[in-house]
């Protein structure tokens, strides 16, 4: 269901756990679906011995995709007008991620209402893994 400008307030939040105990298999699944086959996401010998990381880690876009699931659940299908993030920390297998949207502004342009959201996704240790913003069309 789309949001309504009349029932939203600055500071409102919506939060969802978007993945619990992220599996290597889901990272492989995302590699196949997205077409990003960079071996640092799926290939442990390469990642440890050649790239120098302690473990394979999730595509940034997997974290963004899971964060986007929280957003579309909140604002409704086909309502987003913008969504951007910075990837601030790597996400490793075993991660549990919580994505949160916070209402920053409710505005009207040419008779159409919009909500502007701050977006933050954190891991099980409370560390931010991506941070950004989104906007969506809302009803009056």
């Amino acid at each position, binding site marked *: 269901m789309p949001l309504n400008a009349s029932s939203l307030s600055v500071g409102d939040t919506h939060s969802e756990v978007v993945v619990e105990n992220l599996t290597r298999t889901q990272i492989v699944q*995302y590699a196949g679906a997205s077409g990003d086959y*960079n*071996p640092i996401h799926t290939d442990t010998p*390469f990642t440890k011995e*050649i790239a120098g990381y302690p473990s394979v880690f999730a595509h940034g876009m997997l974290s963004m995709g899971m964060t986007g699931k929280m957003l579309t659940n909140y604002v409704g299908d086909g309502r987003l007008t913008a969504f951007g993030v910075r*990837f601030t920390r790597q996400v490793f297998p075993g991660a549990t991620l919580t994505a949160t949207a916070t209402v920053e502004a409710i505005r009207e342009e040419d008779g159409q209402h919009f909500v502007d959201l701050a977006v933050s996704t954190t891991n099980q240790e409370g560390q931010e893994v991506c941070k950004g913003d989104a906007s969506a069309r809302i009803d009056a």
Partner: protein
Amino acid sequence: MADEITFPIEAGHIMRFAAAIGDENPIYRDAGHAEATEPGGVIAPPTYAIASAHFDPDVARPLPGRPWRGSGAEPTGTPAGPGTDESSRGLHAEQRFVYHRPVLAGETLTVRRRPGETWTKEGRRGGALSFREQISEFFDADGDVVITATMVGVTTSRAVDQ
């Protein structure tokens, strides 16, 4: 990356992409459900534009008869030497999408890419950082832009400290 690619928006691909991000919203897999929604059909999830990589001939993927840098019998399939691990120093720093309308299963988009700005910065965890922006515009059959995507890639001078 190719400068221009054709990106068919396929229902089966949307279903698999939604499954990979753990999104069980039926609008991504059930045409009957989707018809009754505001967009009026199966739509692509917000980050699906990235999956245009499948249709880009220049995106790195294992190909028959070609060396692949991932492991086989050895940790890497490409010869040792300067620059061997350079490509693994490339990370995704930022991503932004502007949506002009929802993208529906069944349409075919044309993606045009162009370089944006470049800049450098001294990082704390990965040494010297070199940033590069790439802008992709997704056009529909009428020539209207439906999505504008801006990717910022960063190349680090060493593996990022944990």
